C-alpha cells in the first residue's frame, strides 16, 4: 500500500482532536472501512494459510473494532474526532501490534504468564496502584455478603428483563448445538424450545413442534406427558429438562453477565462457546478445581447462601467446607475466568465478584484500553 506523505504540520493537525459534525464522523468511519478492506485484500493476496492467516485476519478486524469504538465513543463524549485514526498508516501499525498481542496470547505464553501470576499471588506480592483503596488482594479479604445480595440474584433484579431474556435465549441456542458439555441433548432442546414457545412465549413454535402440537387437540397446557411418550421417555423427563434449562440460564447469567465487565454482557454465541469451554472443558485458563467451583457456584450460592458451602473440589457436596474457606478459591477462579471475557479491558478485571471487593466491583469510569 502506498501511503500518503504528510508534512509535520499536517500530521500534527491530523492527530489533534477537532470538533466534527456527524457527517464528517460518518465519513471517517467509512474511511476506516476502506482501510480494513484494503488490509483484508492484502491478506488474501498474500496466500497465507492456517493459524497465520487467522491471526492476520483477527488483527485487522480487532484494529477496525478498536478504531471504530474510539471514534464513536469520543464523538459521543465531546463531539470531537481525531482524523488520524481513519488514516491507513496508523491502521496498519495497530494491526502489527495486535498481531503481536495475539502471539502473546497463545497458550504457551499464557501458561508462562499464569505461572508468574500464580507465584506472585501466592506470595501476596501483587499490588495495583490503580486500586489503592483495595486492601483486598485477589484471594483474601473475605467478608460475608448480605444474604439477599448474592451477585446472581442481584443481577437478575438489576437487569432489565429484555437483557436477561436475550442472554438466556442465546445461551439455550448455543447449548442446543454444542457437542460437548455443557449441552442440551436433542430431546432436551425440544423441551427447551417448547417451553420457550408455550410457557414463556418467547419464540415461535418450530415446524417439528407444530405437528406435535396439532396432535394435542388444542390443549397446549398438557404438553409434557405427550412429548415424553413421543420421545419414549419417562413422564418426568420434560420437567427434569426444564429444571436443567433453568439451571443453565442461571449459570449463563452468572458467566455472561455477573462475571462480565460492567455493561458488557456477552450476547454473541460465538463468544459464549469458548467461554463455556473454559469452564467445562480441559483448558489452560483454569484448573479442574477452579472449573468445579465456577460450575457449582450458581446453584450452590442460590440454594445455600451464607453458612453453607460451594464444593471446593470433591464433586459432590459430601463434605461441605466452611464458606470462608470456599469463597476465597471461588473468588480467585472468578478472577481467572473474568479476564477471559471479551471486553474485559481492565487489570484487575472488573465484574461483580462473590465478595464484592473494591478491586473488582468498580464502575466503568477510568476504563483502560490496554
Amino acid at each position, binding site marked *: 500500500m502506498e501511503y500518503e506523505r504528510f508534512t509535520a504540520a499536517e500530521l500534527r493537525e491530523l492527530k489533534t482532536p477537532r470538533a466534527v459534525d456527524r457527517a464528517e464522523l460518518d465519513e471517517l468511519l467509512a474511511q476506516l472501512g476502506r482501510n480494513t478492506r484494503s488490509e483484508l485484500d492484502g491478506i488474501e493476496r498474500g496466500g497465507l494459510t492456517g493459524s497465520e492467516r487467522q491471526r492476520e485476519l483477527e488483527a485487522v478486524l480487532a484494529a477496525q473494532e*478498536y478504531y471504530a469504538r474510539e471514534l464513536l*465513543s469520543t464523538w459521543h463524549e465531546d463531539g470531537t474526532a481525531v482524523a488520524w485514526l481513519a488514516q491507513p498508516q496508523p491502521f496498519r501499525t495497530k494491526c502489527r501490534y495486535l498481531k503481536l498481542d495475539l502471539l502473546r496470547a497463545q497458550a504457551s505464553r499464557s501458561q508462562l504468564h499464569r505461572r508468574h501470576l500464580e*507465584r506472585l499471588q501466592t506470595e501476596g506480592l501483587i499490588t495495583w496502584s490503580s486500586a489503592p483503596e483495595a486492601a483486598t488482594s485477589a484471594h483474601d479479604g473475605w467478608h460475608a455478603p448480605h444474604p439477599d445480595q448474592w451477585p446472581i440474584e442481584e443481577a437478575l433484579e438489576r437487569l*432489565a428483563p429484555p437483557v436477561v431474556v*436475550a442472554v438466556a435465549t442465546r445461551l439455550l441456542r448455543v447449548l442446543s448445538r454444542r457437542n460437548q458439555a455443557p449441552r442440551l441433548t436433542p430431546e432436551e432442546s425440544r423441551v427447551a424450545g417448547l417451553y420457550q414457545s408455550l410457557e414463556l412465549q418467547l419464540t415461535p413454535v418450530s415446524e417439528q413442534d407444530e405437528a406435535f402440537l396439532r396432535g394435542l387437540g388444542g390443549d397446549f397446557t398438557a404438553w409434557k406427558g405427550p412429548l415424553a411418550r413421543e420421545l419414549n421417555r419417562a413422564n418426568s423427563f420434560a420437567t427434569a429438562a426444564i429444571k436443567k434449562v433453568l439451571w443453565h440460564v442461571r449459570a449463563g447469567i452468572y458467566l455472561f453477565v455477573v462475571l462480565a465487565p460492567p455493561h458488557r454482557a456477552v450476547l454473541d454465541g460465538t463468544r459464549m462457546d469458548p467461554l463455556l469451554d473454559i469452564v467445562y472443558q480441559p483448558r489452560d485458563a483454569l484448573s479442574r478445581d477452579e472449573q468445579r467451583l465456577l460450575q457449582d457456584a450458581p446453584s450452590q450460592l442460590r440454594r445455600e447462601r451464607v453458612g453453607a458451602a460451594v464444593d471446593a473440589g470433591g464433586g459432590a457436596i459430601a463434605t461441605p467446607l466452611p464458606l470462608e474457606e470456599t469463597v476465597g478459591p471461588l473468588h480467585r477462579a472468578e478472577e481467572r475466568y473474568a479476564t477471559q471475557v471479551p471486553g474485559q479491558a481492565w487489570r484487575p478485571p472488573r465484574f461483580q465478584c462473590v465478595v464484592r471487593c473494591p478491586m473488582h466491583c468498580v464502575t466503568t469510569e477510568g476504563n483502560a484500553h490496554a
Partner: protein
Amino acid sequence: MRMHDDDLTDADLRLVELLSSAPVHDVILDGIVGGFGVEQASEVLARPDWLAYLRTVVAEVAPGRGWLAAATEDGEVGRLNRELLHQAMDVRAPFEAAPRLRVRRDATLTRVTPPWPQPTSADQTSTLRLTGGHATWSIDNLELPPALRFPPQAQPGWVEDLYDQGTAAAIEQGSDSVRVPPLTGEPHPLGRLALGAWLLRWHPGTADPAHPFDEELLRAELGTIAWRHADLLGSTQPARDWLDGTGEALTELARRAGSWSGWRRRLADEVLREARAAQREFAPVASPIRLPMRPSRRVLDGGLALVAGDVSDGSRVGHFAVDPRLVPPRSVEWSESAGLWEITDEGAGPQLHLLVGAGDRPVPGLDVTLELDGEVFRLRLDHGEDGYELSRALRFVPVEVHADVGHPDFPGPVRTAAEVAATHSTVSWIVDERRELFREIDGVGSDAPDLLARPFVAELTAWDPGL
C-alpha cells in the same frame, strides 16, 4: 395462562416469571452482534417499540464487532448501521467513556498517571531522565503511554511528544483528569530506550560462560537510540556514554551479521548504520576501541558440588538469596539460591565458608553482612575461581546464620526472601516471554523490525549463541 411446575424452587419460579415478562427480538439481537441488513435496519428505525428494545439491550450489551464493521461499510448498509449505532452510543456514552489520565500537582511536582495499573516495583518499570522531568514505562506494556513527573511551573515540551498536543495543552491548563490519547499502536521510540535500559539493568545473563550476555552490544544499541533522540534527553551525552567503548562489540556484530538474513539482518544493519553515523559525529571525543571487559567465568556447579560434597559429620550447610537490586547487573548468578554458607569443624575449630555464584559479568568483590546468632560482621567476598568466596574461623558455632550480600554502588533496603524471589520471578518471566515470543517472530514476518518491542540484537545473540 402459563403453567408452573411444582418441582421448581421459588428462585426458579422467579426466574421463570422474569423470562416470561419480556419480549425477545432476534433480528435486533442478531444486529447488535453482527450488524443489520438494509431491510432489518430500516424496520428497526421505523418502529419506536423496536428502537426502545434496542436501546434497552445495548445499555448492558456493547455493540458487537460485526455491527461496528457494518457501520464502516459504504452505501446504504453503512449509513443505516451508523444511524442505529449512533442511537446505541447515545445510551452507552456513560459506559464507553474514554480512560483518563490523572494529574496531581503539589508545590514541587506534577505527576501524570495513566489509568491502567502502574507497576510499583522497580523491576517492572523503566524510568528515563529527560530534560526537565522523568518518564516511566511499564516494561510489560511498552505500547501504553508512560507516567510523567516534572516541575509544575515548567511543563517540558516532550509531554506533547509523548502524548499529543491536545493532551499536553489540557495538562498545562490545569486539568486534573485528561482523556488518554487514542492508542494508535505508535508507541514513542523512547519506550524502546526504556526497554533497553531495563535490559541493561535486569537481564539475568545467559548462564553460558562461553557466550555471556553482550552488554557492550546492548550499550551500543542504546547509544544509537539516545543519539537519535538527543533533543528529548537534553544532550548527546547519554549517547556518548552508552556508545563509549562499544567499538569491539560493533565490529564483532558486523562480522557475525554478515551471515544473517531476513529480519535479524535488518535489525543488525540498522544498529550498525546508526552506530556508525553517531560515532562519526562523536569521533573527536570517542574513546578508542577497547576490548570489552569479559572476565573468564568458571562453571559454578563444580564449586558448589565440592563444598556440598565435603560436608563432614557435624557440619552445616544453607543457601541464601542475593538481591539483584543490591549488586551490579549480571555480577551474581541468576538464582534464588545463589549463595551458599557452610560451617565445618575439622579439628582446628569451626570455620565458616561463604560462596556466591558469579554471573556473566563478575566484579572484583562484594560486601556481605553476616549475622551469626545476632552478632553482625561486615566482610568482603572476593571473586575467585569458583565465584565470590570467603572463609573465616569462628569463635563459636552459631545456630542462626544470615547473610546479606551487596555492593557499595548499589545501595538499597534489605528485602525479604519472598520479595527477592518475586523480583527473580518477574524478571525471568519478562525475559523468557520475550524470547518465546520472538522465536515465533517469523509469524509476524516483515513487521518485526518496525515493532517497538523488537528484540535488541544483544538479546538475539544471547538467545541463540550460534547466530
